[in-house]
């Protein structure tokens, strides 16, 4: 049986996490198809067709799919689900939104946020904020899965030459309407894809003080992140949140500034290659996972670091 990966996209660009999900699909089996459900999304289908290891791309193009509404997107996936043994989504806001709807309609369990494939029916997933790893086996006919992108190296963006097959797009459910979207415009790399992440915590003290991290992020070409405590306190926007209930990141370099290191935060960044922690509290738990710790006042150390880099 074939495996279906649902493409993550904005109708123009194929989201990077799709290629991580394809990599997980390859670990399960060989015939990997990608569904691009969108509106005016031909370019996305063409990009998916070029991704390595993809043998076929299904393009469902229609107005009901323009904004990724869960009701319509789930219906589109269900329209083709019958031909697949596994249906994979990237563990993104969109994937997490839609996958359980598909699973419930198929009357199967969903396996959330897998970090390893043991076999075609057995997967590893973190529980309790990553403090434990559960190996679970599914007996369901269709396995509906979300894939933690940082756990699978993406397949190459080019090198493939899959055929694009156009399929009928679903019509609108009429139950939900898209009203608007406010996306933060930033020249910085995407948090989940960045090779360097600079994150701030409650130690920054205010939204104003958070700006001290800008020059450091500029210098390192880094994305900015934040602990839940900093988001809670209103110092940083929610989509910067790194942790159990925010984003999971695994950059080459993670710089934690003024972050104490609650387990919920560590859950989101402990797979980073190199971790640097700057905190004035020598007892802070973040030092327990940091490769390099600097016990210092961040308001002195951060500008100094910018100078020295």
């Amino acid at each position, binding site marked *: 049986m074939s495996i279906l990966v649902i493409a993550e996209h904005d109708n123009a660009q194929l989201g990077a996490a799709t290629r991580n999900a394809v990599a997980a699909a390859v670990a399960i089996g060989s015939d990997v198809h990608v569904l691009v459900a969108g509106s005016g999304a031909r370019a996305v289908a063409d990009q998916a067709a070029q991704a390595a290891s993809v043998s076929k791309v299904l393009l469902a193009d229609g107005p009901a799919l323009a904004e990724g509404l869960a009701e319509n997107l789930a219906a589109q996936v269900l329209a083709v689900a019958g031909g697949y043994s596994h249906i994979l989504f990237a563990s993104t806001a969109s994937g997490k939104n839609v996958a359980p*709807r598909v699973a*419930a309609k198929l009357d199967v369990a969903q396996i*959330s946020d897998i970090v390893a494939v043991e076999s075609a029916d057995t997967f590893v997933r973190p529980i309790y904020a990553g403090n*434990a*790893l559960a190996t679970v086996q599914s007996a369901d006919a269709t396995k509906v899965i979300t894939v933690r992108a940082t756990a699978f190296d993406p397949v190459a963006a080019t090198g493939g030459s899959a055929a694009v097959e156009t399929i009928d797009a679903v019509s609108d459910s009429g139950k939900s309407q898209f009203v608007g979207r406010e996306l933060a415009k930033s020249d910085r790399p995407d948090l989940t894809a960045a090779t360097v992440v600079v994150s701030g915590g409650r130690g920054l003290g205010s939204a104003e003080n958070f700006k001290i991290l800008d020059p450091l992020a500029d210098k390192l070409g880094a994305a900015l992140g934040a602990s839940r405590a900093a988001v809670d306190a209103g110092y940083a926007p929610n989509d910067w949140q790194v942790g159990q209930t925010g984003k999971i990141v695994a950059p080459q370099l993670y710089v934690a500034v003024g972050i104490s290191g609650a387990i919920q935060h560590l859950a989101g960044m402990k797979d980073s290659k190199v971790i640097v922690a700057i905190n004035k509290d020598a007892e802070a738990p973040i030092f327990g996972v940091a490769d390099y710790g*600097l016990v210092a006042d961040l308001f002195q150390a951060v500008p100094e670091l910018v100078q020295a880099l």
Partner: protein
Amino acid sequence: MKVLVPVKRVVDYNVKVRVKSDHTGVDIANVKMSMNPFDEIAVEEATRLKEKGAAAEIVAVSCGVAQCQETLRTAMAIGADRGILVQTDAELQPLAVAKLLKALVDKEQPGLVILGKQAIDDDANQTGQMLAALLDWPQATNASKVEVQGDRVQVTREVDGGLETLSLALPAVVTTDLRLNEPRYVTLPNIMKAKKKPLETVAPDALGVDVAPRLKTLKVSEPPSRSAGVIVPDVATLVDKLKNEAKVV
């Protein structure tokens, strides 16, 4: 409008769980249990909707062991009017919980179901969406703002890169994110009052739901641990290490 708020009893946010030595699960004996924090936000939001006059009655529901009564009492101390416990000692996975909740929705006919986006024990992030699918209702997950407007609800959602606003026809399912509200402190008089509120107990069988788990947990293990590195004396040493030892800048 009636609002149904499902709440889950989970290991407290501040507890660091330990994997059992036989790898069958995590040790939750004698560990502090609390209401899932996102569900607490859901109860608070329902209570605010009632205070604004948008909701008439709040029904809290919990599925699980007898001690979930405590979780329901907490929900009632925040503002729920009554509680329903679907009592079972069986392991409940998200699909089974969604089916139990659907059976209760069919019976109670709420206009809105509001619950946490994810439980902090299994981290599944599934139940709300599954319930919406089983009911054929619209959904808005990860809500940071909820406004009931006549027969619709407008929800601002936390998505990757920012915010998205949807308008859903009621009845609908909404799941809560962190910034939706800050739950109130539960006061002693409200805890006392909550003890007198009605709490009904039903069995999964009585709702006609098969709760047998679909996923078999083969083992639960410790994640690879990361050991502490070195403490550097100053910024210059840090930069030197990053450049010459780690080679990441």
